[in-house]
């Protein structure tokens, strides 16, 4: 596919072409969707190691006296308990509780970079997040710096990732623990190394200056024979995150849906003394004081048809919502997905069952595939057990 004039290229664009990647536009970038094949790359990540160019992701520095107060205002999570060197998964709600983005916040006060907090945001949302974050910052003694163009980023995921990091100079016991960050060197290249990812596997994300991109990429791929690491494109990134039950902005998350409605209630604390954007609705929904308007569910198809983003969902013969993501699961050999069920026109008994996590499991829904309805069953997420090292 030809690049649009406006689509940006990461510093690894030429490396992707050399590896025979198929490039596609994604979030304003030309990105590799696959190299050798999605299933192969998916399985390599689950069984060995996968290397992803995620340089399109955005990075933000937050610094200043009121960094903490500022973050308390813009996310539902309690950042006051986030220890130095640690990370937390957060959402960025608007005033009505809908989500502008989801993000990971790192407390980097103990780390020698020009920030108190380091935030990683979605590529497709940089142009929305930054103006919003800067506007919110006006009420605080805080500075927001968009570092997205300064850094490249790799994700090294899978059970062999830690061996590769070890070979590059960071012994196991010195490697960052789950959801932490450190400043270190990989074969003398200065990096921020985090134990995070988007696959459900143990693994790392590596942030560094653009000039090191090719060297680091090829250095990691040189462990191909020893640790079976392969380059992985966005295609397998999507099936991996879906199996792990992780949401993708623009699919499971959007500006009209609260984190509770997107089934992220687990990450939203019941109590937080500070006010935050959208708190009234988000907290009322979390505490079941206000009904949900809709809710995200995970499902497994009972038939061989594959549910795709946008397909209509029916319950008991009535249109009840739509598929937000759907794909074959290479690990399970079944077709899986997420759907948003809208409660407005549904029978109240059914809504009660859907609102109860236990009772909702096993409810049969139907997905419209090419003008025919096929059964699917509501299930728990994740679809595939996470394999984190904690």
């Amino acid at each position, binding site marked *: 596919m030809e690049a649009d004039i406006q689509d940006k290229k990461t510093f690894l664009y030429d490396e992707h072409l050399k590896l025979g990647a198929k490039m596609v536009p994604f979030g304003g970038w030309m990105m590799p969707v696959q190299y050798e*094949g999605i299933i*192969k790359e998916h399985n390599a990540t689950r069984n060995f190691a996968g290397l992803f160019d995620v340089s399109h992701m955005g990075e933000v520095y937050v610094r200043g006296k009121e960094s903490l107060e500022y973050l308390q205002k813009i996310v539902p999570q309690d950042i006051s308990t986030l220890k130095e060197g640690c990370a937390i998964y957060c959402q960025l709600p608007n005033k009505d509780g809908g989500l502008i983005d989801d993000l990971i916040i790192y407390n980097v006060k103990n780390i020698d970079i020009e920030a108190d907090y380091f935030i990683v945001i979605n590529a497709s949302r940089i142009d929305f997040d930054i103006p919003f974050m800067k506007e919110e910052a006006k009420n605080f003694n805080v500075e927001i710096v968009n570092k997205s163009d300064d850094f490249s980023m790799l994700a090294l995921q899978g059970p062999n990732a830690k061996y590769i990091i070890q070979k590059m100079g960071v012994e196991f016991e010195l490697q960052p623990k789950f959801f932490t960050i450190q400043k270190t060197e990989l074969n003398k290249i200065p990096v921020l190394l985090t134990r995070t990812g988007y696959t459900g596997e143990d693994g790392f994300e590596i942030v560094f200056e653009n000039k090191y991109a090719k060297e680091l990429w090829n250095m990691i791929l040189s462990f191909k024979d020893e640790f079976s690491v392969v380059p992985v494109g966005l*295609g397998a990134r*999507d*099936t991996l995150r879906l199996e792990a039950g992780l949401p993708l902005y623009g699919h499971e998350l959007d500006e009209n849906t609260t984190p509770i409605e997107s089934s992220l209630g687990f990450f939203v604390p019941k109590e937080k003394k500070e006010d935050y954007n959208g708190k009234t609705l988000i907290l009322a929904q979390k505490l079941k004081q206000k009904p949900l308007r809709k809710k995200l569910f995970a499902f497994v198809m009972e038939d061989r*048809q*594959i549910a795709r983003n946008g397909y209509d969902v029916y319950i008991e013969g009535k249109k009840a919502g739509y598929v937000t993501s759907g794909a*074959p699961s*290479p690990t399970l050999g079944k077709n899986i997905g997420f759907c948003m069920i809208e409660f407005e026109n549904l029978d109240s008994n059914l809504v009660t069952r859907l609102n109860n996590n236990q009772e909702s499991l096993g409810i049969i829904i139907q997905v419209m595939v090419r003008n025919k309805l096929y059964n699917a069953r509501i299930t728990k997420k994740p679809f595939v057990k996470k394999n984190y090292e904690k």
Partner: protein
Amino acid sequence: MNIPDGILCSKTHEWVLEENGEALIGLTDWAVEQLGDVVFIELPEVGSVFGKDEVFATIESVKAASEIYMPVSGEILEVNEQLINSPELINEDSYSAWLVKIKPSNYQEDANGLMEYDDYKDEVQ
């Protein structure tokens, strides 16, 4: 992979091979290469009749569903049952992994707009 002699290809990447009033229809290797891993193929019922350029089947890769069009009109005589349980065969060789056998209803005229394989290859490359 062997490209059978005498196949004709459509702009929408199907091939047809006519012999003694019957024809096999499949997908070109170029199309399959673009699709990537094929995981599911929905084939029509035997006996159904389709016009030229009508959708008669759907092929699902990991990433997306794609419709497959009739390169020539006709009645479905047989579907390749093997592909129902082993859709990945089409990734291995999309010429031996034909999709359907048809009885063409108007072959001479329908085949007019189709290309020989070499011309097709030039067009897609």
